[in-house]
């Protein structure tokens, strides 16, 4: 893990999305909301290496990356205790088990709902096990 200042806490978000237009919009949206972007990865292998290198603190995961399931990325994130939400064109019942239990939003997603959900998963747990500080952005 890279050494960094702990206050104010600004989590680095990994965007895992293969559709260029959607990726671009997500990126813009997050930046405007005050988030820092760790990386935009369009392919599973790129995403996995970012996760492995510890360069991200949370992620927005597109369930399907050009025909390949992003399930392994979800598993890797969960293994490190990193919060993430899933964006998907599939209905919940059609989702693979790797994503079960994760927070799932349907595409196309309302920008405000997305930001709201992201902030929520970054909030600390009641038992304080996850010490995330919530940095209010311009759009909160």
């Amino acid at each position, binding site marked *: 893990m890279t050494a960094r200042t702990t206050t104010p806490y600004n989590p680095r978000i990994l965007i895992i999305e293969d559709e260029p*237009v959607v990726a671009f*919009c997500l990126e813009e949206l997050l930046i405007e909301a005050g988030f820092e972007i760790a990386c935009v990865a369009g392919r599973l292998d790129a995403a996995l290496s970012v996760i492995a290198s510890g360069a991200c603190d949370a992620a927005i995961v597109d369930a*399907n990356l*050009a*025909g390949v399931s992003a399930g392994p990325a979800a598993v890797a994130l969960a293994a490190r205790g990193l919060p993430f939400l899933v964006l998907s*064109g*599939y209905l919940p019942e059609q989702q693979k088990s790797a994503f079960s239990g994760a927070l799932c939003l349907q595409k*196309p997603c309302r920008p405000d709902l997305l930001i709201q959900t992201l902030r929520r998963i970054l909030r600390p747990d009641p038992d304080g096990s996850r010490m995330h500080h919530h940095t209010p952005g311009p759009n909160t």
Partner: protein
Amino acid sequence: MHTKSLTQSSLFEENADLRARLTEAEEMLRAIRSGDTDALVVESAAGPQVYVLQGLDAEVNRVRGTMLAQVSDAVIAVDSEERIVYLNAAAERLYDVAAPRVLGRELSDVVETRWLHPEDEAIAKAALCRHGKWRGEEIHIRRDGSEMLVEVSFTVVRAIGGQPLSMLFVIRDVTERKRHEDKVLVSEIRYRRIFEAAHDGILLLDPDTRKIIDANPFMTQMLGYPRDQLVGKELFEIGLLKDMVANQEMFAKLKVAGHVRYENLPFESDDGKHQDVEVVSNLYDENGHSVIQCNVRDITERKRNEAHVKLLMAEVNHRAKNLLAVVQGVALQTAKHGDPATIAARLSERIGGLATGQDLLVKNQWRGIDVSDLVEAQLVHFKDLIGTRVLIDGPPARLTPPAAQGIGMALHELATNAAKYGALSNREGRVRVVWHITSAPKPLFSMSWLEDGGPKVAAPTRTGFGRIVVGRMAEAAVQGATTITFEEKGLSWNLIAPVENALTSADTGDAAYDCPHDDTL
């Protein structure tokens, strides 16, 4: 006329008549006395009684005769010269004759017969010689010429000394029975044929024992058991029903409703092959006793198809949602970066570009898309200029769907831009769209959009969404690099990407972007 001679002749006649009658009476007495008769007829209060002088009692004879009259089979007796000495009422009816008329006549005169098979004659004769009797089938021909199939038994009746006295025939008309048997046989053959050839499995079960009594070939094939291993077993023993309890349930239901349907039973055959079957059972009455018929249909294929359709539907849904997300993104960006007056028009154009790209994807079933197809599609508004003011050139190459999407959108932006401000906005400007593949040092795909002859252009001051589309977005789509320069003669745009990111593999024509299988969901 002489009265004397008349009287004389009539007297003579009367005399002769009396003499004859006397002779007759004397003759009768003589015959009786000398034992030339079989029986005497004596008057009694109950009517004439026939007394047989030797041998059988007439009453016994009469009773026997009455019995034989009741018998429905025809009975005929003949003497050693084959003359009829007796025939019963049934025989009279069968051959349409009257006993008084045929007694004493040769049997062959009265009854016309034909052997069923030529070899029967020899067999019958041999049987008669050896055993004194024979039973078999013959054809007898009625007086009206019609034929009937009969079952005949002959017996030789012998005297105490052993010499043949007479022959007894008992004849039964079996024409109807034969006809019925033939009908049943045809029906049986027909049923067998259906049973054997059916493309569904058929099992026959005994409702009381619950055991299989027959299985057709399709069934044995389906289950992977030979027929003799199925017969005698209960359904749960061959894995068709889960256990004895399920078995009893089915039979109970059948008894009540006469009909049971299991739409989906999982079944595992001996060799571990898994199948899904539909079982329809019916309780039938088969000529007095009941039988259960189970029709078993393998629906594995059907289920697989249903599952596949479901998969495809989910996929379509996913792609539609994806596309909507893209549209949403394009809308947001267009609104953000564009001139408010033209937002709607620009958005509409862009969505049109997306639609064109989508059409190509579908047409190519989400596999590789030909570069020149893509270029032509996005330049459809200028198709009359292709070959003159618009030149398209490059080797055959197929882009992956993501690459096609990104490059397609870039081309759309470039074309829109050229039409508004660039080489296609006047009458002399030209556009060249070219691409090539280099192999050394690394395989690279390179594409260029080159304008000239258009009005003088200057680099734009603001970074509109279009700039992002031909820049970052196109780059992201192919994991490559783009450059855009605004030269004096016109705009130049270039894209370079590693071949493996942009193009489909030459052999299969399939990209990594395949329709996902079960495991990706």
